[in-house]
């Protein structure tokens, strides 16, 4: 029992939809549970542990107290994995950073009570803006099969690698018609694949919920925009939903 890696799951500001993808592995959870020792996972079990071989972190950091909790977890973890887009880039939580003044954000939601101390918030930060991250699993939500593959690789001592080609590649393999041809702006040319092009395959534009590839081919993107009469502004506005900045390798 003790030779199994000690694994823990933590969540910060997020919807907890990524840990749900683990529950959604269904029977595979049973198999996974036999290979690791899950020592801490607040949503699933009662219990804590002093240290972890692998800590999986979901959610983003939006206040000092959470920052300290995260640093403490980092100090007690051999390997720290940032999973889900809130953890990887700040995700939708980063939308509030577009406001010039966070007091206005608080007023929008809590009205006259916005100055109550417990409602305090600071600009949303991804996990690696607070502590060192060893591995990323992007996506909103994460792709459960990719999660399973990455965990298997970790347990086998391999270094997992994320696809570094755009969603368009997987979209083409699925033999979808290009959404640009239907007058729809799609982020597929910039976005990191690994989702199986799930949105375009369901008739909806890619929103780059897994972030951008390491070196997005901006020239090609500009050509596409020109060809279909779209503007860079539209792309910038759209890519902003999941907190992705294509200039940053994340």
């Amino acid at each position, binding site marked *: 029992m003790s030779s199994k890696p000690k694994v823990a799951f933590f969540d910060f500001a997020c919807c907890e939809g990524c840990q749900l993808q683990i529950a959604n592995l269904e029977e595979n959870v049973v198999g996974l549970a036999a290979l690791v020792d899950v020592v801490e996972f607040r949503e*699933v079990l009662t*219990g804590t542990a002093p240290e972890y071989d692998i800590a999986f972190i979901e959610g983003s950091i939006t206040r000092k107290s959470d920052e300290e909790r995260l640093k403490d977890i980092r100090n007690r973890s051999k390997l720290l994995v940032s999973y889900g887009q809130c953890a990887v880039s700040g995700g939708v939580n980063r939308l*509030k950073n577009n406001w010039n003044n966070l007091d206005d954000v608080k007023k929008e939601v809590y009205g006259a009570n916005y100055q109550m101390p417990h409602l305090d918030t600071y600009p949303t930060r991804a996990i690696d803006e607070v502590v060192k991250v060893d591995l990323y699993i992007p996506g*909103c939500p994460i792709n459960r099969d990719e999660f399973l593959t990455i965990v298997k690789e970790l347990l086998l001592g391999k270094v997992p690698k994320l696809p570094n080609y755009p969603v368009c590649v997987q979209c083409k393999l699925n033999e979808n018609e290009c959404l640009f041809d239907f007058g729809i702006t799609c982020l597929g040319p910039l976005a990191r694949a690994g989702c199986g092009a799930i949105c375009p395959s369901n008739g909806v534009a890619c929103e780059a919920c897994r972030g951008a590839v390491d070196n997005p081919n901006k020239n090609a993107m500009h050509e596409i925009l020109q060809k279909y009469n779209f503007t860079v502004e539209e792309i910038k506005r759209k890519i902003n939903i999941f907190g992705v900045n294509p200039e940053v390798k994340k």
Partner: protein
Amino acid sequence: MSKNNINIHVHHVTRIEGHGDIVVDAKEGKIEKVQWQVPEAPRFFEAMVKGRHFSEVATITSRICGICSIGHTLASLKATEAAMDIKISETTRVLRELLMHGESLQSHILHVCYLVVPDLLRVNSVLPLIQSHTDVVLLVTKLHRLANELCDAVGGRTTHPIRARVGRFSMLPDKKQLAEFKTRLVESVDDLKKLADVVKSLAGNIPDFTRETEYLSLTYDKEYAIYDGQCITNDIKKPIPVSEYKGVVNEFVVPQSTAKYGKFNRASFMVGALARYNNNYKQLSPLATTVANMLGLNGVNYNPFMNNIAQVVESVFAVERAIAHIDWLLNHDLELETPEIKPKEGKGAGAVEVPRGVLFHEYEYDSKGLCRKANCVIPTNLNHNNIQLDFEKMVPEFMHLGEKELQFHLEMLVRAYDPCVSCSTHYLDVKLKK
């Protein structure tokens, strides 16, 4: 230390969605403080969607909650459609209801079996049950898988659905696929009956506690309300339209919680499966009613722990309704709709019954279809005040059991409500102090 001194401090109650704390102080038998606290990090969704195009709003507000993302998506779409006066087809409506029932089944099974049953068996999680109750765990994962695969097939993805859009679906399931789901759903009725037997064998461990409160849910003349309806409680005679929801939920900010609280005709109200059951149980199907009676629900019930039993009952109902909706789809021509949607200035509210209770979204749009103002009222928020008042009645009644047992029962009560604190903001932590 006096036996009558109690000091419980549970930081981050486990096996619930999100973070919450309980603080109870009692000195020499005298209760000094009982408090349910919600310190979840607020995320400010109403601010996030401001200025966004109507076609992107549901994508963002779906992220309020991973577990009820289908409900959030649909409440959001309904609000946008109400604001812009957009009508949907019967096919779209049936597909949405099918998604709602898939989500109810998935969420109720997850909550009752993975999070609550460990309490009834006095173990720390579902993980040891994999060894000790393998057959039951595999039965549960089978039902959970079915619910998720159904939502994957209809919504494109079970968590944060892709195909449900403003005024339409972007893609439709094919009939062969639907027919296969029908077969599996019909077969799953037996699995649910087996599960109900397991729950029945454990029902004796459900704490004996009652507190009558106001029960708030939607109600709909045609059926047990899940997707459509108006607001009803046991304290009002005439249903109130969803557009007037603010006068029903009356949200307010409290110092011990980043989630807002609510109340209507009494000091607090309850939402969720038990509230729905209490208000609308006469509209349940015969099989769901049989399961309810078998598990001790025989009409209006004031024990909040019975919320979990109502969830089992609703799981049966969800399967039956899902089968009926698939039958409807199989008997009609399904064609992909591409309605032209023109943005229009306006304001509108939408409500659905998500697993944890009634959920409201409201948006105001400008003439370009950009969101000017948003408001989301989350069922877990609506329950916080009721949990607090249950605590205040429970602590004196259960104090004689000693600190450890009292803490166990308080945590179990919180779980019974199936709170989804991320939804309401994001955090649960229990302190029981002397």
